[in-house]
């Protein structure tokens, strides 16, 4: 079963192609990152999933069903632009939003108290929304997206505007929700959050998917054939050009590129005899690098065209 399927989805606004031929297929129980530079089409994609914008072409299925009312109650949504009823008290507001998701008042009361406590907002329960700071309002909104324990949680830029402590809190809650069995889609351009959270990603640029799949696999594919080493001793093997093609001495580590017909294993075997190794790992590019590399590569291609 797929929790969410996008099948060759297109959307343009006037002459701007916001989303072009985007296909996704999400299994349940994962955290999925929708990445891309500003204006790439992340929010448009999320809004189409939420049935706020209608795609020009293509199909969107949630839990193998076309958008339906029943399904809406199974989804929690945090829009990019936050808004609350300013004149309503936080407690009443959350009760209302929970009721909109068909949660019985008796049930929602307990959960609201729990989450307000968790997000350190208990003292604000009887305050009006307009009295809260932006960060607090965002936390209230985050509570409203998970209060009904939805199967699918869609968060548009959940971390913008949060301080590091609250970011950490939101991240932990996201992981808990995944533990519970929920699928989470979130859009962001903050790559370090993605590395810590995501199982799968889709990188979109100018409306097109440029990179997608399991995060592990993507990183493997982008693995450069180099080793990061930290050691003590005289590393004579580094100048042996039959073994090492080239190396770079950095402040606290050395990056080593094996010669053409040598493997990482060969290097380890030699090195272990000559120096005291404290760290030896295959260099993986950070997602940040992958992001920049992929996006700028596209740009260069376009220019050369």
């Amino acid at each position: 079963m797929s929790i969410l399927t996008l099948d060759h989805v297109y959307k343009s606004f006037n002459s701007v192609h916001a989303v072009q031929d985007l296909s996704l297929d999400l299994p349940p129980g994962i955290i999925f990152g929708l990445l891309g530079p500003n204006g790439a089409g992340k929010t448009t994609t999320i809004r189409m999933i939420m049935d706020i914008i209608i795609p020009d072409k293509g199909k969107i299925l949630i839990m193998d069903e076309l958008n339906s009312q029943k399904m809406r109650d199974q989804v929690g949504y945090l829009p990019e632009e936050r808004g609350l009823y300013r004149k309503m008290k936080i407690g009443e507001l959350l009760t209302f939003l929970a009721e909109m998701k068909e949660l019985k008042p008796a049930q929602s009361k307990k959960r609201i108290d729990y989450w307000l406590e968790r997000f350190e907002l208990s003292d604000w329960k009887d305050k009006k929304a307009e009295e809260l700071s932006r960060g607090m309002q965002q936390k209230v909104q985050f509570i409203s997206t998970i209060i009904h324990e939805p199967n699918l949680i869609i968060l548009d830029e959940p971390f913008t505007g949060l301080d590091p402590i609250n970011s950490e809190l939101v991240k932990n809650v996201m992981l808990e929700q995944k533990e519970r069995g929920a699928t989470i889609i979130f859009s962001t351009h903050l790559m370090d959050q993605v590395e810590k959270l995501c199982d799968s990603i889709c990188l979109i640029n100018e409306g097109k998917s440029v990179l997608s799949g399991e995060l592990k696999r993507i990183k493997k594919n982008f693995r450069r054939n180099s080793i990061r080493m930290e050691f003590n001793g005289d590393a004579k093997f580094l100048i042996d050009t039959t073994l090492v093609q080239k190396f770079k001495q950095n402040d606290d580590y050395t990056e080593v590129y094996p010669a053409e017909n040598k493997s990482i294993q060969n290097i380890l075997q030699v090195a272990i005899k000559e120096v005291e190794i404290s760290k030896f790992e295959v260099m993986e590019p950070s997602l940040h690098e992958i992001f920049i590399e992929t996006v700028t590569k596209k740009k260069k291609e376009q220019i050369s065209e």
Partner: protein
Amino acid sequence: MNKVWTIFKREYLTRVKTKGFIIGTALTPLLIIALTIGPGLLINMKSDKVKHLSVIDMSGIVYEELVLALDDTTNSRERLYELTQVPATSINLADVKNELSQSVDNDKIDGYFIIPENIIESNKSEYYAKSVSDFDQNRIYRNAVSRIITNYRLKESNLDPKIINNLTQRIQLKTFKVEKGGEEKEDIGLSFAVTFIMVMFLYMALIMYGALVMRSVYEEKLSRVAEIILSSCKPFQLMAGKVLGIGAVGLTQYLIWAAVAGILTFYSGSMVQMFSAGAGDVPIPTIPISVLVYFVIFFIFGYMLFATLYAALGAMVNTEQDAQQLQFPVIMLIIVSFIFAFYIIRQPTSGLTHIVSLIPFFSPITMFTRISVQTPPFSEILLSIAILIATIIFLIWLAGKIFRVGILMYGKRPTLPEVFRWLRY
């Protein structure tokens, strides 16, 4: 349906609990009380202050008659007007006038008359005082002087003023309204007032609560709350919940007012008497039950019609200024029907009346006006309501489409062709 109820409940409760609603609802009946009792009290209020007036009577025929004519008394049975004659000729008139004006300024006298020598021919006289804006007082003076001169002329022509007065006595015309079933009821000009007040309330309700729906929609749109709500329900449910919730607020307010007005019509007579003895004959307007029922019917349908229209417009708004511009044509519709109401009160049977009381955007006000001035055939009322309902159903469909797209469409205000495109989604 559940979600419409949830939205309805929120709209209703958050509005009814606001200070504005409570104060507005409480103050209006006080205003009604003031309006029902006030006139009764004012009519019976008598000035107790003796007025000192000087008269420069150069014709020599007015002063003595004026003393007799202004014979009103104060509550303590003293003369209300104390007149003194001041002699003057055309030569020293300016000086005498100056002196009297100073006396007025020093509050020694309240005012003075100048009756010119040739008043019989010129028909002109003058009155000077600090304040001459009291129409009623001016009328009393004018009538007194007029009558004296008229009587003088009659006598000069050898006619007896008494006989003339008897011959030219005005005839009273009492008006009766024939109600349903041939009942007759004496009408004392108040049916106009009652109709007017009720039409006024209807008009206010359509403008006030309609605009409230519009504001509530675009505020939700501009604050992006709509996006959250719509992740839980269909746009149509949001629209329905809002329109019905705010409508219920209006209905609540009007029912409270109606209850107060009802109690007042029963007791206002005795209330007026409580404040001032001898005012028991102040007529109290009563409203037939059937008219009240029609009021509620046209209130509900009229509100539904305009509220759905306003909701669709609210969804098209992207800035506050948009709201004002878009609102204008709708307000015009309501104002035009209000103007027609005046016409109908005067011409309840004309062809135009028949037509405008069937046109759906006018009928909530125009048909109701017709019903309260001169009950039209039941079939015509039914036809008007049927057209109204059909229009409402069409508008709900139309507004639903516009609302669905508009509520989440940001950016510049949509053009008319764009809105037409929305209908096809």
